[in-house]
């Protein structure tokens, strides 16, 4: 079965305060990097998945992203299914 590779990016929704991002932004100034006006911390999840075809892989990865990797109440996610990265397992 073909192996698909994807990266799921999970970020806090813009309306949700990110105190860890704010603390990191404050540290940037202490490092001497001024002018950081926005810093939000998220997660990158790299996934490899076996599926019969790209459409099935995408559907499975969307389910995974929406129901497990992110909590849609507070987080958004985007899925990058690597083009041309499909390889025979």
């Amino acid at each position, binding site marked *: 079965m073909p192996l698909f590779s994807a990266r799921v990016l999970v970020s806090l929704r813009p309306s949700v*305060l990110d105190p860890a991002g704010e603390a990191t932004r404050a540290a940037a100034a202490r490092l001497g990097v001024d002018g950081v006006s926005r810093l939000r911390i998220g997660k990158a999840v790299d996934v490899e998945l076996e599926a019969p075809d790209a459409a099935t892989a995408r559907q499975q990865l969307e389910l995974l992203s929406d129901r497990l990797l992110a*909590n849609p109440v507070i987080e958004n996610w985007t899925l990058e299914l690597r083009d041309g990265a499909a390889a025979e397992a």
Partner: protein
Amino acid sequence: MTLGVVVFPGSNCDRDVRWAAEGCLGIPTRFLWHEERDLSGLEAVVIPGGFSYGDYLRCGAIARFAPVLQEVVAFAERGGRVLGICNGFQVLTELGLLPGALTRNHNLHFLCEPTDLVVQPGRCSWLQGYGAGEVVTFPIAHGEGRYQAQAEQLRQLDDNGQVVLRYRRNPNGSVGDVAGLSNAAGNVLGLMPHPERACDAATGGIDGQRLLASLLG
């Protein structure tokens, strides 16, 4: 009357709940390992505090798939009484038994201190021993207790009498000062503060006793 207390790898308040219920109040209690599916003979279930499955991914996110919790959802839907404390509250929101989500405290501190809470029992069966507007003191111990919900959803919860516990002085940035929520039917309660740590006079106040004693009513 028997109380079940769920035990995940990483739970750390399971024994506190047992002591409060069985040791202080004489309520027979049995532990439910996370792989168990048998809830027979139980009249209520507590999902205790701690760090279920290490809180990997998000607090409560992995616990949601535990076999025992599939049974707890069915139990709650049949009207069974379910109480989620701290990590247990986070699990209840991940499970969808309660709306919203719990996120990192606004000041990033792990907060471990007594807090004053205003009780509005409404239909919540766990809180019938308290008066409307009564102020009680329960300790909190959490890093991710900041309740989040959309403004419209919070308004609906409020209108429906489901915001049953509010912080008198908001410690963590929760919207609407929410410390605890009930489901619409009143049989499910989730709260960040620890009533089980306010049951034994030897360790402080006993304001939490009436919450667990509601099982004896």
